[in-house]
């Protein structure tokens, strides 16, 4: 809100107007003001190859005596069966379930259908295992509340990745892209006798003053899986997760390889295929801003050219 005590009220007003009209997404905590369409208006199986077309699966009815029934439509795929993927509908009694979407998945696996396959580990948003597409956006199942989901709620694996089984995508390529940015400290000088010290301000460049700097990334790949540029050119574009980590090492005052890191990134596809769509920032379940980090890398390259 423009403060009455501001020395430049006109400028503040203009800034406020700009933010209201052209909302620049800075964090997934920003809720969109208007959502025109729930999903892009093409048929669900549009242009999919025959073996990827999603069929209707079975429905698991709620047990009699269930208090609060909620429906979950979950993507199922079993490569051993030789069948196409399908959508199973589970009616779950959320009255006797923990509060998060991951609790629902665990309840389904232990009480309804033990073949449901998904990754999970820490159940508190720090391991990044249970990243999946919930109601059309990528998030961690353990930090998305059941109360915050649609009716019926749809649960798919992360987008545009090869599927191993059910909600488990193959992340090999994304890990290879992460390895390509060489995510380790590189130095030239002699090894010091003790730790390489940083000032609090220097550490803030990595951790963020609010704890949302590039070092807070948990590599769940919600962002890369949600990036259209990565969908179309994923073999060559590194994607927001790897580029956020590239920035994490460029921003590190202890690292002495910024030049060669920028050399490896300066490419029409690896870096510049980012068209600032900002789905990455919109979907980050940790509230980080990969879009801004990519912009910072572009600035660094512009800086060394002029």
């Amino acid at each position, binding site marked *: 809100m423009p403060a009455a005590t501001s020395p430049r009220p006109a400028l503040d007003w203009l800034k406020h107007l700009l933010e209201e009209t052209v909302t620049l997404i800075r964090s997934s905590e920003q809720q969109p003001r208007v959502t025109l369409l729930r999903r892009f208006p093409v048929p669900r199986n549009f242009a999919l190859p025959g073996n990827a077309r999603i069929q209707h699966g079975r429905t698991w009815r709620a047990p009699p005596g269930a208090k609060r029934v909620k429906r979950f439509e979950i993507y199922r795929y079993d490569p051993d069966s030789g069948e196409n993927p399908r959508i199973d509908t589970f009616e779950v009694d959320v009255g006797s379930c923990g509060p998060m979407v991951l609790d629902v998945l665990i309840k389904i696996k232990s009480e309804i259908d033990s073949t449901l396959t998904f990754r999970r580990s820490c159940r508190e948003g720090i391991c990044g295992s249970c990243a999946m597409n919930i109601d059309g956006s990528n998030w961690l199942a353990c930090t998305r509340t059941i109360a915050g989901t649609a009716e019926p709620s749809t649960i798919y694996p992360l987008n545009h990745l090869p599927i191993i089984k059910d909600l488990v995508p193959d992340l090999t390529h994304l890990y*290879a892209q992460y390895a390509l940015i060489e995510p380790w400290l590189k130095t030239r000088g002699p090894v010091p006798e003790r730790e390489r010290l940083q000032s609090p301000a220097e550490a803030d460049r990595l951790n963020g003053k609010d704890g949302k700097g590039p070092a807070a990334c948990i590599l769940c790949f919600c962002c890369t899986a949600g990036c259209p540029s990565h969908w179309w050119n994923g073999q060559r574009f590194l994607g927001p997760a790897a580029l956020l980590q590239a920035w994490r090492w460029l921003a590190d005052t202890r690292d002495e390889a910024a030049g060669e890191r920028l050399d490896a990134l300066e*490419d029409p*596809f690896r870096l*510049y295929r980012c068209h600032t769509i900002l789905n990455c920032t919109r979907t980050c379940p940790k509230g980080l801003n990969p879009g801004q980090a990519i912009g910072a890398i572009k600035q660094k390259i512009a800086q060394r050219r002029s």
Partner: protein
Amino acid sequence: MQNLGSAREGARQWWMQRMTAVALIPLTLWLAASLLRHVADDYATLIAWLRTPLAAVLMVLLLMALCYHMALGLKVIIEDYVHLDRLQIAALTLIDLLSVALAVVGIFASLRVALSA
């Protein structure tokens, strides 16, 4: 994954796309305003306007920025969405050639109007 390595470029296209975009804001506004002002005038008046030094210079600048920006933008679209190698190379070549041709034709026409006796 490593493919053919980094091209060590892309920064220039990225920068020029933004430069031409910035240049096109005033230039397009100027063209729109000028054409609106002359909307009821006859051919001779319009030609007389284009013969003024300011209009001729701005028109040439506009054509240069427009064609450059168009070529960069169209090529990005082709690279993003056309993944059949031969079709992609053909489309990229065509965009380069046509946008240069368009710029030269436009600039030549403007100069001819502006400089002919």
